[in-house]
């Protein structure tokens, strides 16, 4: 499976990473090199092998859904690049 420049543009769109048009060919070339090397996995027989999701050394646990640290709006807002009153700001999305 080889990536085309069109596919690179599509992936970049999905990842929301702006790609300079002049970088598309080079990106395509590098990613195809990496994927070509990854393709050696094709020779591994995986019939009836279950996928490993985590390291599965411990069962996942649930905890009570309780507030442990509340009232931290101001400290969280101190990290935001732009706020307005008690809100994060984004460009207008509704006309």
């Amino acid at each position, binding site marked *: 499976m080889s990536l085309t420049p069109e596919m690179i543009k599509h992936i970049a769109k999905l*990842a*929301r990473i702006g790609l300079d048009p002049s970088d598309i060919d080079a990106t395509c070339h590098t990613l195809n*090199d990496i994927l070509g090397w990854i393709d050696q*996995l094709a020779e591994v027989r995986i019939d009836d092998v279950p996928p*490993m999701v985590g390291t599965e050394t411990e069962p996942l*646990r649930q905890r009570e859904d309780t507030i442990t640290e509340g009232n931290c709006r101001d*400290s969280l807002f101190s990290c935001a*690049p732009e706020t307005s009153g008690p809100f994060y700001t*984004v460009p207008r999305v509704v006309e």
Partner: protein
Amino acid sequence: MTLTKLTLTEARQGLVARTFSARELVQAHLDAIERLNPTLNAYITPCPQSDVLKAADAADERYKHQKAGRMDGLPIGIKDLFCTQGIRTTAASAMLADFIPPYESTVTERLLKEGALFLGKTNLDEFAMGSATTNSAFGPTINPWKRADAPEIALVAGGSSGGSSAAVAAGLALASTGTDTGGSIRQPAAYCGIVGLKPTYGRCSRWGIIAYASSLDQAGPMTRSVADAALMLEVMAGADSRDSTCSPRPVPAFHQAVGKSVKGLRVGIPSEYRVDGLSPEILALWEQGITWLKEAGCEIVEVSLPHTRYGLPSYYIIAPAECSSNLARYDGIRFGLRKDAPTLDELYEKTRAAGFGTEVRRRILIGTYVLSAGYYDAYYLKAQKVRTLIMRDFEHAFNTVDVLLTPTAPSAAFAQNDNVNDPVQMYLNDIFTVPASLAGTPALSVPAGLNKAGLPLGLQIIGRHFDEETVLSIGSALEKAAGFTHRPTLYAGAGA
């Protein structure tokens, strides 16, 4: 006495005996940082001297009143991937160049609680993605070691925890924290001639560590001795309700495993690690390690891990997939860099293009691709199945042996300009460390000798899940036999 030469264990003894004060210990390190950090670039953000000295004075008070914690007054470096409350935490990315976390990671919180003093935040590959600490938005870290035949060539410190390894090797910290996703503690430890321990996945909480690949990321100590790694892991490890993958098992007294007899333990030598083109120097060191362990009373057993060669390619599906998901949070809105644009999508695209470096963008794109509709089964699901086979290889081997012995890396530290334009060649540096990451087993790198050019080489010990103790016992036997006392060219103790 050169205070920057000490191990954690020696420094703690000196503080208890009041041979020197925490203030003197810290001042020696602050001086070393001032002198050598401009050359090495081991720290992205050194902590303000007045803050560290004030913390040292508080530690001295606790020693005076016999209330000192297990790491009290010991100056260490913190990889700049651990969130530290009120101290800038960048992940070596332009995306987080101004990020000051409002909270403390679990691991650093535990170190602080036992009195550890933070000298600063150490350099790394951006978001821990790399094997050389050349992918940092704050410039590369330089290895304090030099080739005897070409001292003018700047070498890489390994990665991604290269700032941590360089700081410990050069005397700019008694020890450092690192994180390891595919080898990021062990490989830089080997390149800089120090000890690096990746604990079992789940041994240390990941809470507050900036996420790269959540099923692989694990924190661990980078130190000058195996005993120091045991001491520091005891403090760093343990249950944490804020990370559901963190193990609730009690933390063993790891220091008791150090120096314990290894007589009768069975050491596996995986034949698949004898890869084509492996340097004869690395092979010779491996043979030497086998001889040392035989002499210590271990039984050497040839074992097979047949899926070893598929470790790296499956890692480069799984890790980018998880990274593309984890790094989706950098949107320019809630924290981090923001590049304004007329629409929301353009804001995301401009922010993420400007904030992420080349390798991070590359891994996000690969991860997005292997998770996208139509390719998920062929790539991501397949890699997860291969991961099962790799895990089974280890389980099978550990039915007959207690640990595995391998080289840590296929070469010594290379030059800053090598491999930069060939990602696959750069990925191959992690060929011996990635399998244990995928399986989640503990693994330790111990400096074991020098190559002909005078650069350090490491041996790796891989153990069963949650059996860091046997790994540390074997590690200390190797350490004792190797007697590695070499120091790098750029070194705070030199001429002092």
